[in-house]
């Protein structure tokens, strides 16, 4: 619903091209636009973090990991509601992410309804 779209955008950071395309497609189906980034570094270089209302990120990526990206954003006082999606997240990693302020920690394959609820909650907040 276009009326619900705010100025703040949704960012997808994942090194897997198929996953990026799938997430972008899903959001498009519910009328949300998203920007995709192949790595944490690419996202940081884009300078769009201040305008990002919701971050969907993979944990394990070449170069900077998802958790490192979160820590870096926190350090820059740029607190973006973040949803992590990972292939093999253990309890420890999940706890670390949530403690650092992540809104959700999803394990692949994930329930698309849960993801969308979290995304909506993030951008409406």
């Amino acid at each position, binding site marked *: 619903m276009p009326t619900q779209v705010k100025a703040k955008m949704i960012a997808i950071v994942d090194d897997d091209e198929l996953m990026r395309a*799938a997430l972008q*497609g899903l959001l498009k*189906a519910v009328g949300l636009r998203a920007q995709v980034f192949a790595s944490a570094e690419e996202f940081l270089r884009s300078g769009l973090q201040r305008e990002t209302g919701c971050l969907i990120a993979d944990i394990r990526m*070449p170069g900077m990991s998802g958790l490192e990206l979160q820590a870096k954003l926190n350090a820059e006082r740029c607190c973006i509601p973040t949803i992590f999606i990972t292939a*093999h997240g253990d309890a420890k990693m999940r706890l670390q992410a949530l403690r650092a302020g992540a809104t959700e920690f999803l394990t*692949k394959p994930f329930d*698309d309804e849960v993801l969308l609820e979290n995304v909506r909650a993030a951008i409406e907040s």
Partner: protein
Amino acid sequence: MSFPTSKQVNAHDIRRYVLCYGLALVSVATAFGWARLFLYFHLPQPFTSFAMSAIAITFWYGGAAPGILAAVLSIFIRNYLFPENVNLLGRVGYNTAFIVFALLMIGVRRRRSNLEVKVAGRTAELTRTNEELSVEIAERKRAEDKLRQSETYLAEAQKLTHTGSWVWEVDGRGASYLSEEWYRVYGLDPRRGVPGWEERLQRIHPDDRARWKARIDGALSEKSEYEVEFRILLPDGEVKHLHTIGHPVFDPAGNLVRFVGSTTDITERNQSEEALRQAQADLARISRITTMGELTASLAHEVNQPIAAAMTDANTCLRWLDRDQPDLTEAREAAARVVKDAARAAEIIGRTRLLFKKGTPQSELVNMNEVIRETLALMIGDMSRFSISVRIELADDLPAIAGDRVQLQQVLMNLMANSIEAMKDTDGTREIAIHSQPGQNGQVMVTISDTGVGLPAQQADQIFDAFFTTKPNGTGMGLRISRSIIESHGGRLWAANHLPLGASFHLTLPIHAEAQE
């Protein structure tokens, strides 16, 4: 031998002189006594003959000087004690007779001395010859003992190594010598005589007989050495594996006359080699399973990725279709992505399926560059997850090697996994470099180096030992198995520290003979 002292010599000489000259006096006095006794009974006066006997006895037993003394005494007695009825001429006659007799006796005496010297010489010679003979006999006996001993040792060695020696003549192919062990190996009784050519041929396993015969016929026509591995079949059904080496012997004219050689029972060796091969195959399979176990986590992650994407894309597709007005274009796009996702999952499974295959090592022509690329494709996920960059330098003109592709892939996978393990907790550069090049002496060399923690100090060689591990949950078998695989391919695998940091593993594999030409 001790030399007599001068005092002893003097005492001995004096006694001899006394005895010899005493003999002259006593013998002549005895002759005089006998002559007087005869005269008393008015018998013809016989002093001359008695005196001659006395002179002769003195010469013989007492020597020349006492003999002369006896002659002089006799002349004196003849002249002064029997002066009656002898005229001057008779006196001269008697004296001449005594003197001539004395001279004759001197001659006899000298002859005797010469004879004695000769006899002594001969005796000495005989003694020497005798001594030499006994020395020779002793030496011969020693040599014989030695020979007998070395024969015993040889027989013992033949027994220990199950090796029989033999000689067979080209003419008639009859055996002219067969060692005890040869009989034992062939299960024949030496007391039943030397087995003929046909009998020997009958012992050979029917399946190997033609090959064995052909090899020997070949050696006969080429007059060359021969070597043949074959089986024999004993009457009780036992099969033995034998290895024979024959060496041709020529006469001075250059004609081949016989073959000399040995036959070794290699049944046990063959069995243990077979067991070793089996163990190696099992080990390789176990290592494959182990590697698979280690790989499962990685594989799960790899496959999970496209599956998650497929589910999301499929859900998206449904969302487009479930709208009040289905958007078929968007739905088709989402469905197309599902196909792509599924294709990716299939590709990952396909790449690893090869590793699950059970079976004996397959030897084929392998290009190591291909093996490196295939293995890298399996490991790249792990590497990227730990932010490890890969640099590959592969030689374009790399010759093929003969080997088992899957086993070689396992070795590379193992080495790469080790590199990843060594780097995942390090700060700074994380790089794995893979390098292939044609090495020296018909070899292909592959090097995998990393910038990890390096080899454990002072333990660089031990890392290849079984159960040596620095990982918290490593089996300590990875490098051990890797080295065993490379060595079974006739190559070498070793490690070195990589400067300025990390470790490098080098492996060489011999180029396949056909590829070399």
